[in-house]
């Protein structure tokens, strides 16, 4: 069944969705187009917060709070620490924009791809509605993680170990072992 615009705005869930999605998209766009790198990172924070909000709307509480805890609470902090220590001049604008002959085709290409994907999505899912659901219980999630998906779970721990050790080896400041 197709939904008309007025029907769309009668549902309060749709208002909430718009309230979360529009700032997320705006922040995502500003992350890419901002000239100041710290501002870009802070826009990314807003975008990730919006993503967490969308997870909450879908009932995925655990994943949503994990996004806040890990992405916003740790990863972006590390971005900020790294930027602050290494490059950003204090209190000034850093110029990050490319020349127009690079920006214009990139913008054109991304707009075209965005248009194609949007059209394809509306064509495939335009008539769907999300049925009412219960929020996911954490115990169900953990049962799935340790029963059906235990191999990816264990492999992920090796991913993290490899990244950790390799990252330390590369980023270390060393006197003796260096090439």
């Amino acid at each position, binding site marked *: 069944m197709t939904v008309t615009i007025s029907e769309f705005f009668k549902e309060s869930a749709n208002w909430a969705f718009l309230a979360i999605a529009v700032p997320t998209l705006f922040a995502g766009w500003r992350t890419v187009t901002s000239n100041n790198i710290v501002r870009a990172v802070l826009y990314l924070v807003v975008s990730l917060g919006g993503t967490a909000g969308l997870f909450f709307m879908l009932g995925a509480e655990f994943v949503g709070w994990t996004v806040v805890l890990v992405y916003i609470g740790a990863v972006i902090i590390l971005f900020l620490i790294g930027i602050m220590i290494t490059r950003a001049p204090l209190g000034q604008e850093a110029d990050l924009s490319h020349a127009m002959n690079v920006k214009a085709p990139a913008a054109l290409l991304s707009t075209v791809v965005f248009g194609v994907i949007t059209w394809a999505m509306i*064509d495939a899912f335009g008539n769907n509605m999300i049925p009412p659901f219960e929020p996911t219980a954490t115990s169900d999630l953990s049962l799935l993680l340790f029963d059906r998906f235990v191999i990816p779970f264990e*492999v992920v721990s*090796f991913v993290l170990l*490899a990244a950790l050790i390799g990252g330390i080896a590369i980023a270390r400041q060393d006197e003796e*072992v260096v090439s």
Partner: protein
Amino acid sequence: MDAIDYHALLPEIILAVTVLATLLVDLFTSRKSFAAITAMIGMFASFVAILTLAFCDNLTFCTSTGDRVLFGGSFVVDGYAIVLQGLFIFAGFIVVLMSVGYLETDRYYEGEFYFLIVSAVLGAAVMASSRDFISMIVALEIVSGSGFLLAGWRKGDARSNEASLKFFIIGVLALALLLFGVSLIYGLTGTQVFSEIAAASSSVEDIALFNLGAIFVLLGFGFKVSAVPFHFWTPDVYEGSPPPVTAWLSVGSKGAGFVGLLSVCYLALPSVTEIWGPVLWLVAALSMTIGNIVAIKQTNVIRLLGYSSIAQAGFMLAPFGAAAATGADLSQTFSATVTYLVIYAVMNLGAFAVVIIVGTRVGSYELERWSGLNTWAPGLALSLAAFFMSLAGIPPLAGWFAKFVMFSATIGVGSWWGYSIAIVAALNAVIALVYYLKVLKSAFFDTVPADLDVATLEAGTVPGPTSFAIGLTAAAVLVLGIFPGLAANLGDFSSDFLATLGL
């Protein structure tokens, strides 16, 4: 919760234990080669485990029969998984052998290097057994992640840093596209298990979004196999990384990408070959052509091998393109790609092993410095000739059988999809000969450059492990070339499962 078949997981468990053991051995011992020995012992043990799985019927203590399916079909050990896991372990073993001699020449973090190689082998092995997107992508993450780090292992060298950064940025872009495609496919079919996607694909194949999702997934894996037009990172990354890492990237990382393509195309989308067939036909044709043509102009041997690997990836993708024909025998095209991959891995590893030795001896990888190799290292020149001729496809070296299998699969399909790609491949095989012979001409028929001291060059020795690696790969190349049935058996063994799926 069903009981877990630990025998099926045994190779991965041994590799996981090896990963941790390598790290601990490196922590508690002072001689760095102990970590390498640990890694090699572990990989050898894992290979033995693979053999017990392969020859399970002949062993008394091995009770289960047929393919082993675990976790609701997301982890399967069948012929395909066994052949490819064995290939990755072999490749990792040879790379560690090559690195032992190389890492000693300068100051590197050695223990962590071996740790990352074994982690990458673990990831690639899990990829070969994965039959759903989540497991495959997580395993791909290890292979990619360790690849990014290993490419930058020469910390003081700007080229190495550039290689690592380029690889990382383009790699995560490809991963993002891959994940987006997976999410679209999941949204449309409601599952991420390959067999279930195959069952559902007939009902969704007309939806444009499904085609788009499939193409995004192919893009993501296409980057990993460095197919044109996603190949721009390959020459710079191969040139900048330490050469043993380049050997791993060109065989193991590329192989992992092919595992992804094979699994997605033949397991998840076998009934919609009209989606991926034409795309991969185009990609294969472009890869072969552009790889070969640009390789001719290269002066740096490693860059030349990089472009050659792009072209070889094109040859391996050619059967995918031929499968676009309706009614094509998918098991034949599948086994053609796997056979070519196995043979390519062996000869490329050998080629890199020789190239590393010569390069460190001469001090440069520029072709003009390699003139007259035959005068001061005839053994190395001969092995170089063997591997390069194999890459070109000259009998009695293994490369000819790889090309033969590829041609018979593409022509055997019997439609213009197959014929056209076979014509392109034949032309490219001739073009490829140009640059392979260029290197050999320089090695055999030119004189040594005036500023190189022949006496010191002659006095250099090949490190023991590397010569063992060269010997192993050269023997494999000869054996597979003279007795091609072995490779053919491997290919057929790996495509057996397709028969059970009715393809």
